[in-house]
């Protein structure tokens, strides 16, 4: 167990707990964009920064990654911290003007668009938090999408932006995306995601189209359960 102080509050948390979680468990709110409880943190968005003090030295760290330590003093809202968060949000407001989520957080934090930043038109709502990529790789186990290019031209999507043969159309990426950038269109027996169309499978019992055939085949291959046995939707099971 580690004893530390967050925003003046004495807190005890098991060793290895990230500051973010320790704070939230104690009712202290820290904004985040790229963290998700079931995915390893990557520290990409930098919204969760906090200022820590050890002895005389203070520094800015990401609370999703930095773990509690004995004697650590954490300030989640210091001026230096807020300066970073304000910039991150102003940058995202300019990068993703269409994103309601970003606008909401900005309004909540009282951050206005920076008139010196010209608005981007080509980035959609993607903030490159990489939750989708890691979900696809670590949770679904498919690796259909990834990051390409470097620096400001970095993008996320299937390799070479072509239809991905690896994608199973499960939609986990769209589900986890914090800004709703990933579009998943559904028509009765068809689903479209990342530009590729997927045939949906109807439930043997109720007849409702409930999952892409590719996904059922993927699960079948992994588990050894036949597609036929998987062809009943969760509500009918």
């Amino acid at each position, binding site marked *: 167990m580690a004893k530390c102080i967050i925003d003046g509050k004495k807190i005890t948390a098991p060793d290895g707990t990230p500051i973010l979680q320790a704070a939230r468990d104690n009712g202290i709110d820290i904004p985040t964009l790229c963290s998700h409880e079931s995915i390893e943190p*990557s*520290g*990409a*968005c*930098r*919204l969760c*920064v906090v200022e820590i003090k050890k002895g005389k030295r203070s520094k*800015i*760290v*990401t609370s999703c*990654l*930095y*773990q509690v330590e004995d004697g650590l003093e954490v300030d989640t809202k210091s001026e*230096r911290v807020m*300066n*970073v968060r*304000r*910039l*991150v949000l102003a*940058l*995202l407001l*300019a*990068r993703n003007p269409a994103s309601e989520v970003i606008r909401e957080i900005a309004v909540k934090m009282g951050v206005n668009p*920076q008139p*010196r*930043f*010209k608005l981007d038109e080509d980035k959609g709502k993607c*903030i*490159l938090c990489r939750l989708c990529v890691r979900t696809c790789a670590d949770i679904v186990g498919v690796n259909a999408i990834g*990051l390409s*290019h*470097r*620096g*400001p*031209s*970095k993008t996320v999507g299937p390799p070479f932006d072509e239809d991905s043969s690896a994608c199973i159309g499960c939609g986990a990426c769209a589900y986890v995306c914090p800004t709703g950038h990933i579009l998943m269109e559904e028509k009765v027996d068809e689903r479209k995601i990342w530009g590729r169309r997927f045939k949906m499978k109807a439930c043997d019992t109720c007849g409702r189209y409930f999952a892409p055939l590719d996904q059922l085949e993927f699960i079948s291959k992994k588990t050894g359960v036949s597609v036929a046995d998987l062809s009943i939707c969760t509500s009918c099971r």
Partner: protein
Amino acid sequence: MSKINTLEDLNKAGKRGLATLIPSGTKIMVGMATSGIASGAQDVYHALDREIRERRLDIILSRTGSMGMDCMEPLVDVLEPGKPRLAYGKITAKKAPTLLEQIAKGTIETIKPFYRMDEEESIILGKSKRYGDGSVPAYLKEIPTIKEIPFYAKQVKIATRNCGLIDPESIDEYIAKGGYSGLYKAITGMKPEAIIKEVIASGLRGRGGGGFPAGIKWKTCREAKGDVKYVICNGDEGDPGAYMDRSVMEGDPHSVIEGMIIGAFAIGSHDGYIYVRNEYPLAVANLGKAIEKAREYGLLGKNIFNSGFDFDIRISKGAGAFVCGESTALMASLEGAAGEPRAKYIHTVEHGLWNRPSNLNNVETWANVPAILTRGGKWFAGIGAQNSTGTKVFSVVGKINNIGLVEVPMGTPLKDIVYDIGGGVPHGRKFKAVQTGGPSGGCIPEKLIDLRVDFDELWKAGSMMGSGGMIVMDDRTCMVDIARYFIEFLESESCGKCIPCREGVRRMRDILEDICAGKGQAGDVELLETMSQAIIDGSLCALGGSAPNPVLSTIRYFRDEYDAHIKEGRCPAGVCKALIKYSVDSETCTGCGMCVKVCPTGAARGEKKQPHVIDEATCTRCGACLESCKFDAINVK
């Protein structure tokens, strides 16, 4: 080749090396590092080779690395028995026959050497060996010795001790200079802890940028839990204009290899990697050959010096991304993943490459290690400054007369580097600033010319040591434009993982571009400062963490230039095209017509011998007339 197992074996190899290093016949050495090749050394070598063979001359022709004085390349050294070694600069293939004739005649009439060396120095052995009997023939007395040349006088070469003196492909010559005796001493006579103690005592700090004490890093890695550990050499060298590591890898690859073996033994590692950018083909080739040779001699592989210690090195080629020089990105790249940094709250000395304890040091750091082992930590600590011991190699480029690589004791005044070694600013222009620390370093202004160059002093001045790049600027350099240039480089080299760096740096570039284009707004400087602080604090790795430095340091020392651009629409240095006008000063113009000749758009006009004019509408402000006018009659305002 038989293996080297004992001190006797090592001495034998050294004797063989000495026989080619200072042969009984005449020897010609051509500086064939990249800097030499770029100036035509390859042609010079072939021309000499052809002539020697056609004339059946009894001359040994060999290749060597770079002595650092790039402005004199191609460099050819001549060593005749019983005479001092002579260095000839700017030799062309055409001059090759003349040079050979001159050697045959025993004169220096047609081509003058620019310095002579009376002795072969070895910093490792701590002694020098005079060529011949040490006497200097009368006709050579007028030639200054290397120590009398301002470029070399204040230099102390430890990391680059053998560059330009030995054939990098000859392990024997390396051994003749004392090479592998540090390793012998360490492996056969010292405990790992004692080696680490020696390195700590030397005060050696990492030469790759951060300046972290090498011995402490080794110690932590040694003490880290795990059976498998790695030692890694960082040869990524991504700073534009920097090439000290390249020079060492090309000119003296064994110094890096020996350093790594010593480090591996001290840390308890059996696997080493050298990460080099693919754009350094000669470095890759010479390192590869050196590793082969070291294996042949049993200095790499199993049971080194019969000690039971095994170690080998592999080379890994990077694709030349600046960010891949960052330790965690480098390790990701070594693993075959994208070169993206990760947070370092978990240290790489404990969880590095493949999650195993890994010790990463820079090329120059490793190259210093053999010298520390042979001469002792105390000796090393006695060189340089208090908290920055030893020497540092700098690549001095830009508006400076003697462009080249220099190695000076830490704490050498900036003034000595710029004026004495560098020979000052060309064309009688005024020295304005020097950018140190690479793209994310800072600009040191003229008023700080007395600054003693070491890790801490540079940091206090708002810049940093970085890997040792120094770009000298004269009064025709616009500091806003310079900040824009470096920020643009960093923008394109950002890996794009985290938001402050990926998005913030490009917005800073937008604003700087606006200022240079005369579209700056009131409050821009303050905005840049606030953004800088947030980017420094908020970025994931040190690329973003230091990216704003060029902006902050130019604001700190050249705020007036920012204000002139923004408030007065003026570029005081006459660089930013949108803010300047070219005109001819009719008083000083002699009507020589030079500007008319060089102007690519026909904007410069006039009758011969009459004052000329420049048509503002067609002038593209390319600066061709300014460069060519001998009478300083072109005004830029």
